[in-house]
């Protein structure tokens, strides 16, 4: 081999040494989140599908819209029938997203062990903490944003359709411009979603911890221990603190009756998703941090086979 050829052969090695030891953390994190969305299209497909069905229903019901608008435009008459579909879409979008997030969390760290793809993921320079954080981002950040986007678009389409029908019938369109309609629904959802996501963070964290731990039937492992504790408490002390606490964690935001205006002074005890001072909320957040950390530790230390 000539000296030149030798040099040419050596050249890529010099480049190797210059190659960065690791890519910026945010870049790795970003692609890890994208990866989750590739695998779990339900995160956005399910809310979209539900919104589409709701829109079809609304379209079918649109023939009775002129009557409803007429009734709503009369002072002192019930406006509920006009507003209800908007709130319904927001509510159904929210519930769908929560359900998707629950099932996502339950499978997030189990699927990769079941199909052994964890051996592929672990052959790449991505830490277990980064992986778990990217998975936690789905229910905590991505899912609420998807919910908001889907509900905003769906209600906007409904509103535009209503406007067309109202104008075509030569009715007074002012009732559709009411503060209580589109702005109310959008604002309530935007204000409520961050709190709701944080409120359910310990649930997602618990499910991911179980997902990282259970070999199979993660669902049973997720619900049996809390129920068992509540059951033992009821038998031993004839009290129901655990049971009520579980109900609060599960249904807190839905027990809150303040969707329409609400009275001041609501607390997390009945689930006001905008009460940021509530200790219940922050106790839950601390629990969530512990659960996610536990999930990362389990993924790191468990043997992949």
């Amino acid at each position, binding site marked *: 081999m000539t000296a030149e050829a030798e040099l040419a052969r050596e050249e890529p090695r010099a480049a*190797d040494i210059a190659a960065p030891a690791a890519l910026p953390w945010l870049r*790795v994190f970003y692609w890890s989140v994208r990866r989750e969305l590739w695998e779990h299209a339900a995160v956005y497909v399910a809310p979209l599908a539900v919104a589409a069905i709701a829109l079809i229903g609304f379209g079918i019901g649109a023939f009775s819209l002129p009557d409803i608008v007429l009734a709503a435009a009369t002072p002192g008459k019930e406006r509920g029938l006009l507003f209800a579909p908007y709130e319904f879409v927001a509510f159904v979008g929210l519930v769908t997203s929560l359900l998707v997030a629950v099932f996502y969390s339950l499978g997030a760290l189990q699927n990769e062990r079941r199909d*052994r793809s964890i051996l*592929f993921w*672990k052959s*790449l320079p*991505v830490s277990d903490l980064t992986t778990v954080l990217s998975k936690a981002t789905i229910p905590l950040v991505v899912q609420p944003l998807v919910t908001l986007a889907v509900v905003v678009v769906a209600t906007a389409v409904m509103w535009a359709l209503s406007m067309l029908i109202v104008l075509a019938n030569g009715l007074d369109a002012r009732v559709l411009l009411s503060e209580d309609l589109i702005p109310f629904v959008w604002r309530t959802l935007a204000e409520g979603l961050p709190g709701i996501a944080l409120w359910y963070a310990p649930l997602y964290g618990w499910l991911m911890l179980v997902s990282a731990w259970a070999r199979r039937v993660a669902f049973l492992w997720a619900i049996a221990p809390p129920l068992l504790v509540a059951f033992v408490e009821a038998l031993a002390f004839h009290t129901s603190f655990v049971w009520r606490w579980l109900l609060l964690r599960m249904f807190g935001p839905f027990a809150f009756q303040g969707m329409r205006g609400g009275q001041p002074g609501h607390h997390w005890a009945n689930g006001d998703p905008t009460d940021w001072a509530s200790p219940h909320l922050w106790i839950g957040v601390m629990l969530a941090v512990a659960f996610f950390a536990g999930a990362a530790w389990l993924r790191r230390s468990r043997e992949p086979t």
Partner: protein
Amino acid sequence: MACIEARGLRKAYGATVALAGVDLTVEQGRIVGLIGPNGAGKSTALQAILGLIPHEGALTVLGRNAWAERDRLMAEVAFIADVAVLPRWLKVSQALDYMAGVHPRFDRAAAERFLDRTTIKRASRVRELSKGMVAQLHLALVMAVDARLLVLDEPTLGLDLVYRKQFYDSLLNDYFEHDRTIVISTHQVEEIQHILTDVVFLDRGRIVLDCSMEAFEARYLEVMVGPDQLAAARALGPIHERRVFGRGLLIFDGVPREQLAALGEVRTPSLADLFVAMMGPAPSAEAAA
């Protein structure tokens, strides 16, 4: 600095000892075959090297503690477990995007070139590909990583002969283009014998043979002898004997070639035959063919 340095590597699962104190040194640039029967501890050893399992004893891979620094180590190590580990939902294009997104030493263009030589479509999902195509895809991803150490655990399991041949050809071409160390474990010993520089036999968690291929060729000889020479050959202390078409096929350890040449045709035994000789039942227990 050695690429892999293990001292007293031990791993037990409950009462089952998978690795019973392994000392192993793999220098840079070698191609090491890790060969052993089922349950010998091959996969356990490879998983320890990859930082996937905790263990007892000292283990340094590329100067790092594999268990403590897995994610950083993986920037310089590429790994194929077996063909089944690519997730079935993954699209080929997504695999490329993701690798380029998270791996500092992934050369996307190289992976694309490799895929262009196959019939794999970018829009296909892994579940739509045949077994051989999945192996090709995985190989394309792994080969495009400029890894200093490549670990292959049964990489051709379940593939047909054509794919296995292609796989090792690609592997070897790539090896000569880069400066890397390769550790392979496989059952198909014959297929990798010609590409190895070193061979390690593992049995019940212990290393029973660890030598370079040159040393292997110098040390082990196989002689085919007729029935009349059989007694003389046996007197030299073969480590293994079997019958082929009425003639004896004997393997010797460290007996001079000239001495054996007088008895019959001398050649280097295949790794597979030596493997059977060392791992199989004792010669006396073996039935004549």
